[in-house]
């Protein structure tokens, strides 16, 4: 148990002293996972809206794939993105392997199904009568989508939280495509893995606390927005 106390003390010290390396790692984590979440939002929300409303053959197959994708194993994503980005791979000429951009791509792949699935579920919870009512009142397609988005905005916020949570905490993909390069692609989770294998459990614990405080703060802000107008 004294290890936990040591870790907490170390975490406070690291935070208070403003250790430049920890700060850098934390900022990179925020930038990479934030960008990945943003991309997944841009792709996942429209896709989720579309899948919720559209009727086409094989829709169940696609929805099933999205729902499976919500639990996509990060290591598998890491491997696939690596194969694409390696020098010998189809995108090798871009030289993206072992860069922060590579991590963003892999994390976006992980988060897109999460955001898509939750957006879809949120829309499908709306009363089907809403659609008829909106269209009967003569809404243009743009107005229609706008109203739908407004109605499910809290669901979308939940999707953002889930998406961010899934990418900021994953380690397999970041390790595989980022390589945990010091001062360049080292994020909080890969740094924790490294410190554990170095036997520096206190630093690993400290970084873990930083990660949790970070995730909690972001989620807390989003939660406040989400719960501002609670009806239950």
């Amino acid at each position, binding site marked *: 148990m004294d290890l936990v106390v040591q870790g907490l003390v170390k975490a406070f010290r690291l935070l208070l002293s403003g250790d430049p390396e920890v700060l850098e790692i934390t900022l990179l984590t925020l930038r990479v996972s934030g*960008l990945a979440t943003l991309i997944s939002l841009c792709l996942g929300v429209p896709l989720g809206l579309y899948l919720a409303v559209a009727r086409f053959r094989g829709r169940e197959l696609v929805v099933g794939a999205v729902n499976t994708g919500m639990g996509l194993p990060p290591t598998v994503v890491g491997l696939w993105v690596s194969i694409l980005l390696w020098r*010998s791979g189809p995108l090798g000429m871009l030289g993206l*392997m072992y860069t922060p951009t590579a991590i963003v791509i892999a994390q976006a792949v992980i988060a897109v199904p999460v955001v898509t699935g939750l957006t879809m579920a949120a829309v499908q919870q709306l009363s089907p009568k809403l659609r008829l009512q909106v269209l009967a009142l003569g809404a243009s397609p743009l107005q229609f989508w706008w109203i739908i988005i407004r109605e499910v905005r809290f669901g979308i916020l939940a999707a953002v939280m889930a998406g961010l949570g899934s990418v900021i905490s994953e380690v397999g993909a970041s390790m595989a495509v980022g390589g945990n*390069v010091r001062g*360049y692609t080292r994020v909080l989770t890969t740094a924790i893995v*490294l410190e*554990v294998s170095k*036997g520096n459990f206190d630093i690993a614990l400290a970084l873990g606390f930083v990660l949790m405080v970070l995730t909690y703060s972001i989620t807390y802000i989003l939660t406040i927005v989400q719960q501002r107008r609670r009806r239950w």
Partner: protein
Amino acid sequence: MKKCLVIALCALVAFALFGCAPKAQPQSKSPTGQESSSKEPVPPVSAPAGNKDVILATTTSTQDSGLLDVLIPLFEQKTGYRVKTVAVGTGQALAMGERGEADVLLVHAPEAEKKVVESGAAINRRLVMHNDFIIVGPKEDPAKIKGSRSTVEAFQKIAQARALFVSRGDDSGTNKKELELWKAAQIEPKGSWYQESGTGMGQTLNIASEKGGYTLTDRATYLALKKNLSLVILLEGDKSLLNVYHVMQVNPEKFPRVNAAGGKAFVDFMVDPETQKVIESFGKDKFGEPLFFPDAGKPDIY
């Protein structure tokens, strides 16, 4: 209308992607910018032309022991390159070399290395340093291997006693060495007493320590982690336990995307007398004994 939305979103994504790249660039422009670590202004070094990134595929022991944390900044400061260290098992590091995914390799499995050189994937293989492997285990030593005259004898005793042995099981240099030793002892390690952890050296030591098992480890990682372990050295000094590190370039003629100049610069750096001195003194202050012994320039008999 929907199309407009899709186009707008695509534009946003593209923007986000490109937004990330320039942010990453400034770091690569000044690979010597170690502002935080070195207080004195660093004299401008001859900035290398062309690709400034060098991908180093290496074993976990060089990273976990902390040696690379000392050597890499030194190299970057001297040459202006930025090193992307990918610390994996020697097996994976060599595989990366064979596919041209790395520029330079720092590994410790001489037999396997020779094959890679023979295949033409690696060139300029140079002897860098050595330390030794040791057999560690619980203080109680259930298989009574302490005092064994050779590794072969110790391994036979462990197998006979069916005492728990934790293997890396990850095709790393240490794992390769361990399998060689079982072979020499004419034992096929199998059964509930032989467990493969499938992780790096640090983690494997933790597992062996928790479960009270034996394991083969390089000395550097053991010394670096000793404070957390309830394992003691039970066998050391046998000739078969030598752990030799070589550095080599990935062949740029075979893989055109390989950073030839950067790889060569790193090989030269590793065998440079100044670097060798740093290697020699590394760890002395912290562990009371050196973790690695420099060997550059000595006849390479491995």
